[in-house]
């Protein structure tokens, strides 16, 4: 839906620019490497892309003269990304980070064409000898949001602005629902699929639609702060920062957040390229390893609820508690996890079903 002409054009134009920039490049000495980053949104979207960008800058500052950062923002997912990546590889990048799920196949295709360039794809599941994947266990943070949402809602109706029906988003919905339901059996989820990662007007409309239909807590899996602004205008609605802290909306409506912490990973992986030890990896870290941060739980939350949420955070970090612990059933009523059983990573990574109690179907 968001594949507008504008984005295609921006992509094409920047690709041209990169091609021009690449002309003089190949003869450079190898003591300085180029590190490429591709973002799905603008790099100051206030959320997902901005956080990747800031982590990239932190990584570049860490290495100083040894690293040259090349970035490209607002690259549409799909075939057009392949051109942008090809241009980046041609311009001499040693390692390229592609920071959105929809870049998975384009990254894989370009990785095959450039065996000497390393690729790192965020949030996907396909790898190659020169393509690693990395992701964060956001569902751990969703568990805490679900708990807070279940405690804070008065209408027992929680809104969820989902982006695309991919495992990562579905995992988040399930995790939030399980923990909201646990503390509030009356709770219901209303889910809107926005089919965009970033479209402030549409995200705002979605938030308004949910609020009009009685939701007083809204979770979002889209990248802009527009739903926060809509909730603030409506008054008694709680939200959570997504990907970035979004602290400018605290203490109300934003009562907590999931923060992505990418910088240490970027520093480590670029370091591995510099000393020649880079190998394709499959990294999936959560709160414990520091890749997922939980933003300050604001003063709008009662102290006992806050303490309980923080305990859950610490238990997840230490490994004492797993957000997907049985007994759990799938939406169709079939058994998924037995009492005390913990979901394995394979199932989680490819999750395409709702857990029992969520209404509606996942778009196919």
């Amino acid at each position: 839906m968001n594949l507008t002409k504008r984005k295609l054009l921006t992509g094409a134009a920047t690709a041209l620019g990169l091609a021009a920039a690449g002309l003089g490049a190949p003869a450079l000495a190898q003591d300085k490497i180029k590190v490429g980053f591709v973002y799905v949104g603008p790099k100051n979207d206030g959320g997902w892309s901005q956080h990747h960008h800031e982590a990239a800058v932190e990584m570049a500052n860490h290495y100083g003269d040894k690293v040259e950062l090349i970035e490209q923002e607002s690259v549409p997912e799909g075939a057009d990304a392949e051109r942008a990546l090809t241009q980046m590889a041609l311009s001499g990048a040693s390692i390229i980070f592609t920071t959105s799920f929809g870049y998975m196949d384009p990254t894989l295709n370009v990785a095959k064409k450039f065996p000497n360039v390393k690729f790192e794809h965020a949030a996907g599941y396909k790898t190659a000898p020169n393509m690693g994947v990395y992701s964060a266990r956001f569902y751990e943070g969703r568990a805490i949001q679900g708990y807070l949402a279940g405690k804070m809602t008065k209408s027992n109706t929680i809104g969820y602005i989902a982006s695309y029906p991919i495992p990562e988003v579905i995992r988040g919905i399930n995790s939030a629902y399980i923990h909201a339901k646990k503390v509030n059996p009356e709770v219901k989820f209303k889910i809107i699929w926005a089919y965009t990662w970033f479209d402030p007007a549409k995200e705002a409309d979605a938030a308004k639609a949910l609020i009009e239909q009685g939701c007083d807590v809204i979770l979002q899996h889209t990248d802009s702060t527009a739903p926060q602004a809509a909730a603030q205008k409506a008054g008694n609605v709680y939200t959570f920062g997504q990907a970035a802290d979004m602290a400018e909306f605290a203490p109300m409506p934003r009562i907590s957040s999931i923060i992505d912490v990418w910088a240490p990973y970027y520093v480590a992986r670029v370091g591995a390229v510099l000393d020649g030890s880079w190998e394709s990896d499959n990294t999936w870290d959560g709160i414990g390893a520091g890749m997922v941060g939980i933003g300050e739980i604001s003063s709008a939350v009662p102290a006992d609820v806050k303490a309980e949420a923080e305990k859950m955070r610490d238990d997840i970090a230490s490994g004492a508690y797993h957000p997907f612990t049985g007994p759990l059933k799938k939406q169709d009523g079939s058994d998924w996890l037995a009492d005390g059983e913990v979901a394995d990573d394979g199932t989680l990574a490819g999750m395409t079903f709702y857990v029992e109690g969520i209404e509606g179907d996942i778009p196919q």
Partner: protein
Amino acid sequence: MDFSAINPAILLASLIVAATPILIAATGELVVERAGVLNLGVEGMMIVGAICGFAVTIETGSPALGFLAAALGGALLSLLFAFLTQFALANQVASGLALTLFGMGLSALMGQNYVGPKPAPTPELHIPLLSDIPFLGRVVFSHDLMVYLGLALVAAVWATLKFTRLGLILRAVGENHDAAHALGYKVVRVRVAAIMFGGACAGLGGAYISLVRVQQWVDGITAGQGWIALALVVFASWKPGRVLLGAWLFGGVDVLQLNLQAAGLAIPPQYLSMSPYLITIVVLVIMSADRSRAPGALGRIFHASG
């Protein structure tokens, strides 16, 4: 499924809000195209208007000044297009696309210090008595001034094109610029004025997004709405009334589909998501099956020697 949760009054009210940005921008572009100029830079002018309006509202605290600045900003940017196409005789399609790219970059640059703050709210009019009518009061009489200005704009453009001498000249220039020139009309002057009008409207539409609909600044905030406005003009066969219908259809179906999803309608959301585009196009294409056609000189370069 629980449709009782959808309040038709609020739904219709949000429809009108959602339609306003594309309505204003498309009306401006309609005037430009009726003057024979194809400006593909609507998206760029919208987003520059969005940041101009936002920045001025933040600095002065006055949304009215903000909207004024948005119109000025859009018009100023469109002057660049006017210079390229009317004086340097550059290709209109290429210049328009360049204007969009330029506008996107410029707005990102201008907006660097404006990510975060909240603009002063644009007050919703509360008309005594009228706003208190059940249903109708909420749907029709409880909006901010820009909604009514948008409607007035459509009516004014329609009346001007149809009934006034000014409208006649504009249409003459758009249908056959050589003939208009031979009659002594200043083709370039008329077109530059039309382009600036279009720029001002696009700016207003953009500012409506940043000041009313989203109420904050983020890069790329218009997210393609300028292109929708542009398409709307064509599908509406260059007629103001149909632009209004198209904008309401588009905004309406979009808001409706989000509400239907929230209410748990069992139609797959992919279809709901594409429905605004599909329904708007189908309705307008069916309507344009009559003798409507594009202005004769649309997109053609005029030079007095020709």
